[in-house]
């Protein structure tokens, strides 16, 4: 949207500008502080952490904790590090994000451009589903997955994430498509394109900004999920479960530097997504005028 480059009509004095910059700086520090602590401490030997100041820079710099967290820390009986779980997470996240995004786009498309009697109620139902606390679905979900033979498998996990991702992705796409003229669809209909062709050739190619928002949202939610991963992952546990095993072991020795390194490693893909796609995030929010 070109409006991003619009000039603000508001003018501010020198003193106000100073204050603004100072405030922004303070908040920058506030937001960066925890990250700083994690990074700094992941580069120290353990003794420096338990003994010293966690804000101070390492006296001895070491990347050993990172190496350990990645490839040799004890996650289960085998000292595998987080590496294998990373693959599991990718195998789960990518299809789950893709499917829920495509479904959301299709639903949004139907709900805005092919409206029929009762579509608003359906949208309401989909939207309300975003707000269900996940703890309550655990037991019935397990029963259903068991019946479907999907318990403890990647497809099972994907199903779960897709189900609870549909609400938000539908919301995003619906609001976005609502701002597009219905004439576009009508023109394509007269041109002879059917439902799917219109979607594929017309709607999808213009969905860039909102797809970014949707993917960021779904990716972070699914990647960071622990509850479903632990409960329904079976042998194929995702990264968060592994990180949890690394960090939460209750009666063993706690290697905080490794924990921090692991935590950052686990967060790396989502951070990356935010940094790479973050530029489009506000734009996408604007375009989708997110409401809810």
């Amino acid at each position, binding site marked *: 949207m070109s409006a991003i480059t619009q000039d603000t009509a508001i003018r501010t004095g020198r003193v106000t500008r100073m204050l603004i910059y100072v405030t922004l700086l303070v908040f920058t520090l506030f937001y960066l502080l925890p990250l700083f602590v994690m990074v700094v401490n992941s580069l120290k030997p353990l003794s420096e952490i338990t003994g010293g100041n966690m804000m101070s820079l390492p006296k001895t710099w070491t990347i050993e904790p990172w190496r350990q967290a990645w490839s040799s820390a004890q996650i289960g009986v085998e000292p595998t590090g987080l590496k294998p779980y990373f693959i599991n997470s990718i195998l789960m996240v990518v299809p789950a994000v893709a499917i829920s995004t495509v479904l959301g786009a299709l639903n949004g498309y139907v709900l805005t451009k092919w409206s029929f009697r009762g579509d608003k109620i359906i949208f309401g139902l989909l939207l309300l589903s975003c707000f269900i606390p996940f703890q309550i679905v655990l037991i019935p979900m397990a029963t259903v997955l068991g019946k479907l033979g999907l318990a403890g498998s990647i497809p099972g996990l994907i199903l779960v994430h897709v189900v609870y991702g549909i609400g938000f992705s539908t919301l995003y796409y619906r609001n976005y498509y609502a701002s597009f003229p219905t004439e576009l669809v009508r023109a394509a209909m007269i041109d002879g394109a059917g439902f799917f062709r219109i979607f594929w050739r017309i709607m999808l190619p213009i969905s860039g900004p909102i797809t970014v928002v949707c993917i960021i949202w779904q990716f972070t939610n699914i990647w960071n999920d622990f509850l479903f991963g632990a*409960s329904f992952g079976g042998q194929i546990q995702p990264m968060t479960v592994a990180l949890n095993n690394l960090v939460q*072991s209750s*009666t063993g020795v*706690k290697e905080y530097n490794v924990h921090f390194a692991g935590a950052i490693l686990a967060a790396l893909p989502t951070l990356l997504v935010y940094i790479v796609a973050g530029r489009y995030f506000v734009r996408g929010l604007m375009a989708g005028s997110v409401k809810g």
Partner: protein
Amino acid sequence: EDVEVLHWWTSGGEAAALNVLKQDLATKDIGWKDMPVAGGGGEAAMTVLRARVTSGNPPTAVQMLGFDITDWAKQGVLANLDSVAKEGNWDAVVPTALQEFSKYDGHWVAAPVDVHSTNWVWANKKVLDGLGIAQPKTWDEFIAAMQKVKDSGKIALAMGGQPWQEATMFDGVVLSTGGPDFYKKAFIDLDPAALGSDTMVEAFKRMETLHSFVDPNFSGRDWNLASAMVIKGDAAFQMMGDWAKGEFLRAKMVPGTDFMCFRTPGTAGDVTFNSDQFAMFKLKNPAAQAAQNEMAKAIMSPGFQSSFNVVKGSVPARTDVSDAAFDACGKMAMQQLKDAAANGTLLGSMAHGHADVASVKNAIYDVVTANFNGEYDAKQAAAELVKAVALAQ
């Protein structure tokens, strides 16, 4: 055929210990599917277990504590290990107090791996020596010793303010205040009279006294950080289960010379225990059942029991295992366990779910932690305890 094992032993030492079992099974051509879920002392694992069981796909074996085993057995989802038990003569070598949990309705359903006991005190010997403090034998001596430490400017009692840590301390305090019979009446029989008795009020008062020896930052601290305080000599004592020993050993401290281990003053001869067991779940596939039996057998083999517990810092669940491989503290613990089992003073730990079902345990936690954090005074706490326990039953 493989066995799938759900457990929360994910820290270095524990996992290494478990690897012994895995390797043992590998020699019998039994594969190991690992399913570790850490968090909250097994809480997360129990949640996962529910999901697995309801989905009709339970793991082969699950690390479990105390009444959880009984609860699951009640649901009729556990396997029958009687044949293996008979073969290995488990009835004879496992203390009856443990058998209460390993058996349900007269049938073996779980294989005990270790016995931890919770009424331990760990102390930094250099600090004590420096202040001229000897190992306290009675509660009063213990208090006096802590007062001395406090006066010297050091922290007397290192602890982490998490409900289960407070409850672990409470185990020892109640036992030392009321003795084994009272403990049994209060925590195992859940006798309201005992729960609300003056003795219980006294126990809560002792908790308050302990609170005065704790540094202000105790809340939320992990237990091993508390141990680190003792190790570094910032604090003198820690009241914690025997898993704390690992921390001291890792810091290259030698039992008896660098650090001391002794039972909570006033509880000599009594042992409050908790025991990690592998509950075996009912399986349909006969080959899987065979593997499951093999696993149970392997767990109960003296070799595994010894090597696992040496690493873990606990003592074997079998009383007939040689103590040769254990250190001083370990040898002492094994002896005391044997004696207590014989004397009937081997008591399930309330804090670790070996005295009561989960709901009651947590109800007691609530009161203990409320008292320790100053919300209830001792009298109130005792009264609330009666109420909470009644509500949770």
